[in-house]
């Protein structure tokens, strides 16, 4: 460096110059010596600023992290599973715990009522049954706890599909049982025709979600019981028994059934008994005391004999219960739904029959709007009546000899006509056939069916 050598020779002077004179030259020097570093620092500062901005701007931050987050979590789970579980437990654990607790509480509630109801006795019974059946005690206990309610009991005439008797546990829901019994019978007939043989019993049950229709068939009638849940063992046998009882007691009425439900009064009693079966095998206070005493005594005795005796007792209690249930509980029941009634015109009074008064100008229009009518001519002066019978009310109009009538219908010896003679008010009504002559009219002999 020649410059350097030259400067070195006047070192003192140069330094003195710089101190005394210009700070700018120091700057210059700094620029010369450090300019690379300074530029780098400026770069870093800008980068830092940008980073700060991104961190403070939430959206930009998310954008930045998202791509790597999933990968990071996966990695973390692989490397530090326990750590993560520990971290997440306070959140997820609580949710799971709440759900489980609720389920357990429900189960416990059912268990409680069951256990309270039956004391230790029922436990012994379960244990015994478990041992006999090979199922676990828990399974048996669970089975006993399944809910079961009867909503409707229908006694149906097999041949006609007509409803003979109906009981309902809950009056608030209205089902059209007449239609149910008709359609059920149609379904049974259909499946019998397609699948069945003569000696087969036919459809035993129909399922719809949790609801089922259980059916038991006898000779002339069948019983359809609409239930919720699973029926207890022996319920079908009970159905059959009640059905047999009814068929036996009402054999004649049912065999020649003409649709008059009055002939079957009292038929609902056996069905009430059946209905009370779903009220559960509740024990009376007296029975409970006996049960408690018996249980206490039995606990002292050997386990084996305890089980055996409890079994015998249980059988006795069941039949006592059935006897007690024969007196119906206060549960409300109805028979036969209400429906709309349309009055038929009575044949005796009320001249409310079908009289159509139309202005004279219109009849021609009315007549042409109908199919080519059968036209007849009156050969006598006769009262028009509201129904095909001399007992029926008169419409209040006499048709005279020569009047033209349109023949609308016929029932036996009676004809339903509309007067169409020009210039007269249009009237319809029944009159005896012999007072009309018509080219096409047949004189049908014999009584009407």
């Amino acid at each position, binding site marked *: 460096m020649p410059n350097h050598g030259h400067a070195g020779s006047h070192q003192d002077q140069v330094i003195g110059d710089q101190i005394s004179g210009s700070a700018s030259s120091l700057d210059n020097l700094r620029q010369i010596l450090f300019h690379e570093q300074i530029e780098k620092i400026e770069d870093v500062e800008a980068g830092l600023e940008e980073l700060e901005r991104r961190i403070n701007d939430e959206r930009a931050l998310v954008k930045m992290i998202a791509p790597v987050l999933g990968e990071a979590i996966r990695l973390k789970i692989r490397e530090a599973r326990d750590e993560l579980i520990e971290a997440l437990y306070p959140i997820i654990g609580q949710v799971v715990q709440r759900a489980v607790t609720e389920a357990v509480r429900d189960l416990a509630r059912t268990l409680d009522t069951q256990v309270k109801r039956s004391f230790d006795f029922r436990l012994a019974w379960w244990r015994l049954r478990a041992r006999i059946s090979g199922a676990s005690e828990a399974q048996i206990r669970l089975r006993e706890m399944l809910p079961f309610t009867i909503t409707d009991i229908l006694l149906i005439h097999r041949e006609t599909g*007509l409803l003979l008797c109906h009981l309902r546990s809950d009056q608030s829901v209205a089902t*059209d049982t007449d239609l149910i019994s008709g359609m059920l019978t*149609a379904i049974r007939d259909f499946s019998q025709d397609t699948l069945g043989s003569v000696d087969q019993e036919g459809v035993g049950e129909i399922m719809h979600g949790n609801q089922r229709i259980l059916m038991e068939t006898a000779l002339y009638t069948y019983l359809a019981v609409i239930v919720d849940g699973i029926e207890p063992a022996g319920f079908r046998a009970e159905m059959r028994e009640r059905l047999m009882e009814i068929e036996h007691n009402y054999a004649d009425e049912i065999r020649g059934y003409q649709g008059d*439900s009055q002939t079957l009064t009292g038929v609902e009693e056996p069905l009430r008994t059946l209905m009370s079966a779903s009220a559960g095998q509740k024990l009376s206070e007296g029975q409970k005391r006996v049960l408690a005493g018996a249980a206490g005594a039995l606990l002292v005795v050997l386990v084996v004999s305890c089980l055996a005796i409890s079994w015998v007792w249980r059988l006795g209690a069941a039949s006592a219960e059935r006897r007690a249930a024969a007196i119906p509980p206060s549960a409300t029941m109805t028979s036969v739904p209400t429906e709309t009634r349309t009055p038929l015109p009575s044949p005796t009074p009320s001249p409310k029959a079908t009289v159509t008064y139309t202005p004279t100008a219109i009849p021609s229009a009315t007549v042409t709007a109908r*199919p080519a009518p059968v036209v007849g001519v009156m050969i006598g002066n006769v009262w028009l009546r509201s129904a095909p019978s001399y007992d029926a009310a008169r419409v209040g109009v006499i048709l005279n000899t020569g009047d033209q009538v349109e023949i609308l219908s016929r029932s036996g010896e009676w004809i339903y006509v509309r007067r169409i003679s020009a210039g007269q008010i249009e009237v319809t009504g029944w009159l005896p056939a012999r007072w009309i002559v018509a080219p096409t009219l*047949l004189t049908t002999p014999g009584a009407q069916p």
Partner: protein
Amino acid sequence: MSAITVNKKVCLLGDFAVGKTSLVRRFVYDRFEDKYLSTIGVKVSRKTVVAPAAGRVIDLAMILWDLAGSEEVDKYRESYMRGAAGAVLVCDLSRPETFDHLPVYVDEFLVVNPQSQIILAANKSDLTEALRLAPNQIESYAGSLSIPYFLTSAKTGDMVEQLFRQLGRLLLAGDLAT
């Protein structure tokens, strides 16, 4: 006034699309629909009418079995007919063949229910332009069976009420006879 309730099963018989379902719909709900949905199997409806019989007032519940139409005798229809106290025969005034098939239904029905009451409905009387059956044909056929007949229209409601009420009377009268 607590009346006696009597239930009677009634079948509607006749070919496809003659208007069996429409007649029931008119009688029970007083409605009519133009679109045709063929009945499959059977549809059960009910209408109760109040009728006097033998000096008493009777609630007559007609359980109406609306059967699918088909000309062949089929075993399903036979079991649906079982136990019916009455039948409404239906033909279509605009389709003569539906009238020609009526004897098939009558024979089948009477074999299953010999003691029953039958009534004839010649339907669609409102189709004045398309009528292909003369009322006197209907008249003479009904006469030969000694059964009442009505020229009905499920569309306008003409004679539908009268048809079913007349059948109701016959059903109760038949009861008194037995």
